[in-house]
């Protein structure tokens, strides 16, 4: 930004430092477990060692004898209050505590309330439960076989099949496949993974029996929705419910659902009249909280011999665990999976998804994407590489040949989405230039001659974020708008409150930057608050990269409402007609006489001290923004890997990420979001997975086995941008929190498969462990030079 160009301190496009950091670097963050209320009790949970079993007895006597233990809550106690089951967001139901049957290992069985954390743990260990094991099903294909043990015997349908969903032109797609010159198909499994935010989940519930006020401090990404859900489920009057989401130590979707622990702490507080704290430990977090993925996908692409893609066909089996508790904000059971046509103009496409119950924990959640987008992008980007391999063309060339061209936007996809804007070739060409794609291919050819294994992988993803337009997106009927309430004080300082909730994204900084730009007030003078339902305007929260597309837009719109009123006050101060005033270079100026001007601060003071007669005093506005469309961030990633032939170990040597998230609010924060997203894409590609054996025992239920990447294996990410603003967003921004998580896995998988081309391999399921690579190398000699 040149010194001469008019700008406001902390406005759009500036890498200002974060406002929230001051407390975090001093250890003065305020996370749920940091809060201590007078008289607070602690709740701990007894969990099932079995994945499927009948509970024949629960004996609480020993637990109640543990010094400090005050109460033990079981499913029968809850059933008496009609609280043993709770509704899920997907019209299914979930146990708070079981009355007779447990359906996954680590399921909650009883809750112990005590006057200290340690006594509660001792009490939970002392609850005695008798189980009668039942047959276990952990494989969704087996769950759907005739004669499989039915898990949800409470349902009318005595079957493990939950739902079938399909979209697209089935007949047209079949016809396109019949006439196709080339067809490639592949099975892809994307295993269960877990967000494992560094802070686990927890709450402090407090029912004040005198005032009837119920307050819950809670690790939630959506405090307002929680308040309404609590009101609807418990019958408590909504004005008496206050949900506070304090500092959140990472969410990534894992803090959208309502977990039984929250409900148990609430019940315990209502019963005891004391505040009750429940904070899960890491094992509980990994073993019982919502998972992500677990999609068994079969995909087929039809194309012409010249590589032009024509049709896409996808059949998927989704493993939902024992209940469909998906945190899915859309009307579609499989979320936004039908973004699966990706960056390519498929004329025909058909997608079908079936969901099954298994003896696993319920879910799912997005793991940093706007629900099932990562699965879609992984599939299409892997399929493009498989097609390139089959046609013996360079995968970059195949993509460049097929991309939806920039002049085709807004572009309506075969599966019904309207992409807002894009320049896909621009991003890929930029990435190829930065990484020297041609040079890498030459190096690879030389290395192959020497028998060394090096691979280059591309992912040119299209995301879909910003849920969402009210015609398609809701949670239990609550439309997916979001909000901003902006109030300018007499001295020109601002407080702004939002319906979203940052979990590390830096909203206190970036929202202030949007407002600074719109109001001409320095970002330092703008205070942003979120997360307290008593003070913030109603909104649906932060996930699905929706904060900038919805609440960010609401910030602009609220500021513009303020400008409308402020213009009248400025006219009054400048003694001209409002029609003679224009907002230009961050001030109200008399048209043609730009030196005659009033700043927003001048106007704010007047709004309280000298407002024109007939105008209301004060200067504030609220906006509830219902976005007209989703936004479609995109990018191209290129990954280079080297493989140790003896051990099968994969090393990511370079990774260049070119992202386009439209208008950039704070480049420093955007880069930080991309670094983190890339690491959460790298993780499932090479390390993270949760497995279950045939008895339903979890493998990956603690940080001993669930391998979150460390700084050592995480690549040194290289980032760059193109900027293609969203035409429908007030400032042209698209959202960026999740692009990299969505885009990275196929780039890495494609690179590994590319390295193993001499062995004729077309696909390896993620996570690509060293042994999988070793098995391919040692299965036989290279098939081609």
């Amino acid at each position: 930004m040149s010194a001469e160009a008019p700008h406001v301190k902390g406005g759009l496009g500036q890498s200002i430092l974060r406002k929230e950091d001051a407390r975090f670097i001093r250890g003065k963050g305020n996370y749920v477990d940091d809060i201590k209320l007078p008289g607070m009790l602690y709740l701990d949970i007894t969990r099932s060692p079995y994945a499927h079993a009948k509970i024949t007895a629960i004996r609480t006597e020993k637990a109640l004898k543990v010094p400090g233990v005050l109460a033990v809550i079981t499913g029968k106690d809850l059933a008496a209050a009609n609280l043993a089951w709770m509704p899920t967001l997907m019209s299914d139901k979930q146990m708070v505590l079981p009355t007779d049957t447990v359906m996954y290992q680590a399921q909650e069985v009883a809750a112990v309330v005590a006057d200290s954390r340690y006594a509660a743990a001792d009490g939970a260990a002392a609850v005695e439960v008798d189980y009668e094991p039942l047959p276990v099903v952990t494989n969704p294909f087996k769950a759907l076989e005739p004669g499989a043990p039915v898990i949800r015997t409470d349902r009318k349908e005595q079957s493990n099949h939950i739902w079938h969903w399909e979209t697209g032109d089935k007949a047209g797609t079949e016809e396109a496949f019949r006439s196709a010159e080339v067809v490639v198909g592949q099975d892809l499994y994307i295993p269960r993974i877990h967000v494992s935010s560094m802070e686990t989940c927890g709450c402090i519930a407090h029912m004040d029996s005198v005032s009837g006020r119920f307050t819950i401090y809670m690790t939630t990404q959506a405090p307002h929705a929680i308040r309404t859900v609590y009101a609807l489920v418990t019958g408590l009057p909504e004005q008496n419910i206050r949900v506070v989401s304090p500092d959140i130590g990472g969410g990534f979707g894992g803090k959208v659902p309502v977990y039984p622990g929250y409900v148990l702490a609430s019940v315990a507080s209502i019963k005891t009249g004391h505040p009750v704290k429940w904070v899960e430990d890491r094992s509980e977090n990994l073993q019982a909280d919502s998972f992500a993925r677990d999609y068994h996908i079969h995909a087929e692409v039809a194309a012409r011999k010249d590589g032009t893609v024509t049709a896409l066909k996808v059949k998927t089996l989704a493993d939902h665990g024992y209940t469909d508790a998906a945190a899915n904000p859309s009307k579609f059971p499989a979320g936004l999976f039908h973004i699966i046509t990706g960056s390519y103009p498929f004329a025909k496409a058909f997608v079908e998804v079936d969901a099954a119950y298994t003896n696993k924990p319920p879910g799912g959640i997005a793991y940093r994407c706007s629900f099932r987008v990562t699965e879609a992008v992984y599939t299409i980007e892997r399929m493009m590489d498989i097609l390139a391999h089959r046609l013996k063309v360079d995968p970059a060339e195949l993509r460049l040949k097929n991309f939806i061209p920039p002049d085709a936007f807004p572009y309506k996809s075969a599966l019904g989405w309207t992409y807002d804007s894009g320049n896909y070739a621009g991003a890929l060409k930029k990435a190829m230039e930065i990484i020297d794609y041609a040079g890498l291919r030459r190096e690879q050819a030389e290395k192959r001659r020497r028998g060394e294994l090096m691979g280059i992988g591309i992912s040119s993803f299209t995301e879909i974020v910003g849920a969402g337009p009210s015609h398609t997106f809701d949670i239990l009927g609550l439309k997916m708008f979001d909000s901003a309430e902006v109030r300018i004080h007499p001295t020109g300082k601002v407080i702004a409150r939002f319906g979203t909730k940052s979990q590390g994204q830096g909203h206190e900084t970036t929202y202030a930057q949007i407002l600074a730009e719109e109001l001409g007030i320095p970002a330092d003078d703008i205070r942003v608050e979120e997360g307290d339902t008593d003070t913030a305007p109603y909104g649906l929260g932060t996930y699905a990269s929706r904060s900038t597309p919805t609440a960010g837009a609401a910030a602009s719109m609220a500021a513009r409402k303020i400008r409308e009123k402020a213009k009248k006050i400025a006219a009054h101060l400048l003694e001209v007609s409002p029609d003679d005033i224009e907002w230009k270079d961050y001030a109200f100026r008399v048209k043609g006489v730009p030196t005659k001007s009033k700043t927003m601060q001048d106007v704010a003071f007047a709004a309280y001290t000298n407002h024109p007669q007939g105008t209301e005093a004060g200067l504030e506005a609220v906006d509830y923004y219902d976005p007209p469309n989703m936004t479609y961030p995109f990018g191209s990633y290129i990954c280079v890997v080297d493989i140790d032939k003896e051990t099968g170990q994969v090393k990511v040597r370079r990774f260049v990420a070119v992202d386009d998230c439209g208008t950039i609010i704070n480049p420093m924060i955007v880069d930080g979001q991309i670094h983190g997203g890339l690491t959460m894409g790298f993780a499932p590609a090479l390390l993270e997975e949760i497995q279950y054996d045939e008895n339903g025992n979890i493998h990956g239920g603690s940080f001993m086995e669930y391998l979150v990447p460390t700084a050592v294996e995480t690549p040194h990410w290289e980032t760059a941008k193109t900027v293609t603003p969203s035409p429908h967003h007030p400032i042209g921004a698209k959202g960026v929190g999740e692009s990299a998580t969505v885009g990275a896995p196929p780039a890495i998988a494609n690179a590994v498969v590319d390295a193993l081309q001499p062995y004729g391999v077309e696909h390896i399921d993620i996570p690509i462990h060293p042994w999988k690579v070793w098995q391919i190398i040692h299965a036989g000699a290279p098939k081609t030079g």
Partner: protein
Amino acid sequence: MAVSARPIAPAASLSTRSAPVVRIQVTVNGSPISAEVEPRTLLVHFLREVVGLTGTHIGCDTSHCGACTVHLDGKPVKSCTVLAVQANGRQVRTVEGLEVDGKLSAVQEAFVEAHGLQCGFCTPGMMMTATALLARNPNPTEPEVRDAIRGNLCRCTGYVNIVKAIQLAGKKMQANPTGPGGSP
């Protein structure tokens, strides 16, 4: 619901009445703290709930994540896997002890300037590890920094800016060894 008749009198500390307690004295950020604790009291719980310093976080239970990192006699350790009694008579420094007389340490400044934090949960532990690293090696290479923080997991930043922050802090210390940011 089976609520016992026993009156509720929440414990002032973590201790459970039946267990024998041990009196310990620990110097925390320069101040001597004397308290009675159960032998099983973990140092992290002692710091958070007895001393009241909640900057030290708990991210796992198996000594993998490093959110609970503090200095014990100058060396970084994972306080979720140390008993408070083990710290008896010793010096503990927490994130709250990094800022001295209102002056942020070089590491604190650098984490803000290089955007080395997002949700802030791993940050205190990360900064304690960084502080110990820079005391030994004020000019670490990128691989040295990455190896030094391999016991501190971060889920938000992808580590790039944490590495930058730590190297920046080293430079600040060298440029101004006695200045405000001079001490690691």
